[in-house]
């Protein structure tokens, strides 16, 4: 038998990703993002925020409510409906000493700005002899399950993960939203910061006060387990934990759930170590499966942990259809949820 070549993985970042949450204030995801951006803007006058209705209206999801009043029109810029202009000018600001945090109202509307993001922001460092960088954050609500239909539901993160030069994060908890947003703003490269719109008010949790940082590229072990690993991110972390609890009760299996938090850079070490321990992996994404983050994670496991596997790597993803349909039952059929994850998990455990 031919020996498979060793696949190196990223280095371990730190052992413990758990939060000691005693006595911390509870916040919703939207509150955590609001408060963090507010604190960051108070502390650093290089930060400006721009986007459609971020000022007077405070953002359609109220993330920047009160910002215009506090920081004025020079730092909180209501823009016309012009995504390419929003991102392109933000890049220019980043090239000239500012730290823009641009809001794209829904990730679905980012496409007109794709050229600026992929062709310009992502390449500035590479094409400038490392003389220039593009320290900017693009915040965008993503994800489905809110009856948003074709253009208010998309999860197109894979496109950005596929673009070298960009970083992509998707917090699943309010605490991580804080830690990752701080890290994203401090990062010297462009970061896409994805906020699941269904989680904005649904998900509440403890948020540490003060300097709470989460490094980009470090996953979180949402729960420990020994019999199978679920790797996922965003809202699917919560669905996966629901499914894991049900299956654990039914079968007694102990399920590990890894919340990626960063999609690029990817914490390969944590994924691979977990799978070496559990020998079974289920990768879950809310996006459609073809060439998705789930494909990448499955490939990583195949390359770096094949010899440890007791079962084929499985995936649960949205179907390859052009859009999230509007009709609630069709939308439900489209969406990945605890039930679909649970069904796959049972098959994986039984394998």
């Amino acid at each position, binding site marked *: 038998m031919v020996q498979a070549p060793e696949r190196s993985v990223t280095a371990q970042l730190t052992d413990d990703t758990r939060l000691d949450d005693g006595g911390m204030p509870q916040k919703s995801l939207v509150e955590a993002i609001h408060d963090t951006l507010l604190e960051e803007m108070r502390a650093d006058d290089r930060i400006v925020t721009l986007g*459609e*209705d971020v000022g*007077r*209206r405070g953002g*359609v999801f109220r993330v920047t409510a009160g910002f215009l009043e506090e920081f004025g029109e020079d730092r909180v810029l*209501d823009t*016309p*409906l*012009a*995504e*390419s*202009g929003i991102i392109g000018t933000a890049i220019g600001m980043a090239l000239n000493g500012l730290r823009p945090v641009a809001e794209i109202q829904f990730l*679905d*509307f980012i*496409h*007109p700005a794709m050229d600026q993001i992929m062709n310009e922001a992502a390449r500035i460092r590479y094409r400038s002899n490392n003389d220039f960088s593009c320290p900017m954050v693009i915040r965008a609500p993503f994800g489905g399950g*809110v*009856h*948003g*239909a*074709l*253009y*208010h539901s998309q999860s197109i993160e894979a496109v950005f993960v596929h673009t070298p030069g960009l970083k992509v994060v998707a917090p699943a908890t309010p605490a991580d939203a804080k830690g990752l947003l701080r890290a994203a703003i401090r990062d010297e490269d462009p970061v896409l910061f994805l906020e699941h719109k269904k989680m904005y008010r649904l998900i509440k949790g403890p948020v540490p006060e003060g300097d709470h940082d989460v490094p980009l590229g470090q996953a979180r072990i949402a729960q420990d387990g020994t019999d199978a690993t679920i790797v996922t991110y965003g809202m699917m972390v919560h669905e996966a934990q629901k499914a894991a609890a049900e299956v654990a009760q039914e079968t007694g299996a102990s399920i590990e759930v890894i919340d990626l938090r960063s999609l690029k850079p990817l914490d390969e070490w944590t994924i691979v170590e977990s799978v070496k321990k559990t020998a079974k992996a289920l990768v879950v994404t809310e996006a459609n499966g073809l060439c998705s983050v789930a494909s990448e994670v499955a490939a990583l496991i195949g390359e770096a942990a094949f010899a440890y596997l007791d079962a084929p790597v499985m995936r649960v993803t949205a*179907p390859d*259809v*052009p*859009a999230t*349909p*509007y*009709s*609630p*039952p*069709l939308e439900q*059929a*489209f969406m990945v949820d605890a039930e679909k994850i649970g069904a796959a998990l049972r098959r994986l455990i039984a394998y």
Partner: protein
Amino acid sequence: MATTQRAGKKQRQTEQDGLTAVAEALGFDEETLRGLYRKMVLIRLFEDAAQRTFRQGKIGGYLHVYSGQEAVATGFLAAFQEGDRAITAYRDHAHALLLGSDPKAVMAELFGRGTGLVKGKGGSMHLFDVANGLWGGYGIVGGHIPLGVGMAYAERYWGSDAVVQLYLGDGAIHNAAYHEAANLAGLWGRDGLNPTLFILENNQYGMGTSVERATAMTDLAAKFDSYAIEHEKVDGMDLVAVLACAQRVTERVRETGKPYAVEALTYRLVAHGAGDFFEKYRTKEEVRTWRERDPIGLFEQKLLAAGVADEQGLGAIRDEAKQIVDEAVRFADESPEPPLEELHTDVYADAE
């Protein structure tokens, strides 16, 4: 040149003379005028019902109604001929109803039912009814503008004299898609190859951002100058003015194959979206002032003054429209959900 300008002026004078003169010039009989009233009332009641059922949870997601802007689409689509095409953004219920979509199928689409215009797959913002000339409502603002210009090119390519009515908002005009498409329309139109009628519905706001806060060049019609597209403005609250303008400019586009733009000054009398309570960007006073020029009220007064209808007659029309809307809601409510297989249909030509 001078004579056509004078003729244009004379025509516009007639438009100001009021209902009777305009109706006569357009060859509209009294029944047609009452029919237009019926259409506007139907739209308003349909939108009221949509907002009501949205609040009851029967419609989900995002819903944007046309209340206050009825005279614009009603006036322009009165000039629509068989073979013409219409394309618009997401505030699209009125356009579908005016083009002849069955109100039941439109409401069912809003409810996401299998009997809806697109089987419940699209919902409020994404109506499509090709048989009636509606080439879509589009949720990505600005995204549809190049599509309209391309369709117009194809009409002339095939030698037809059809016109594409392309509706866009005051917010959409700041998007790159508009500028690229308008330039092409102007360019192709120079050779008579672009019968696009741009209908810019300036309702003063794109969500919470007023025109003045979105652009330093607030004369929006003038933005068409950059692309050598001739343009004018019309009072979008006054159906009679819109009707006259629409007939004249549609014929002009049909004859010349050149694009033309009309900025209809209008107002959204309701919140941006049905789930939207944030109205701080405009004052109650401002809304009240515009409400006094509610397009339905204005037209009602004109019908009464001209003796085309009496109070009783208008009441009967409203009752009739209400019945149609009630029936549409009942139909939508009782309609089945689409079968789950629909998730996977309509993806490619060769696969189901």
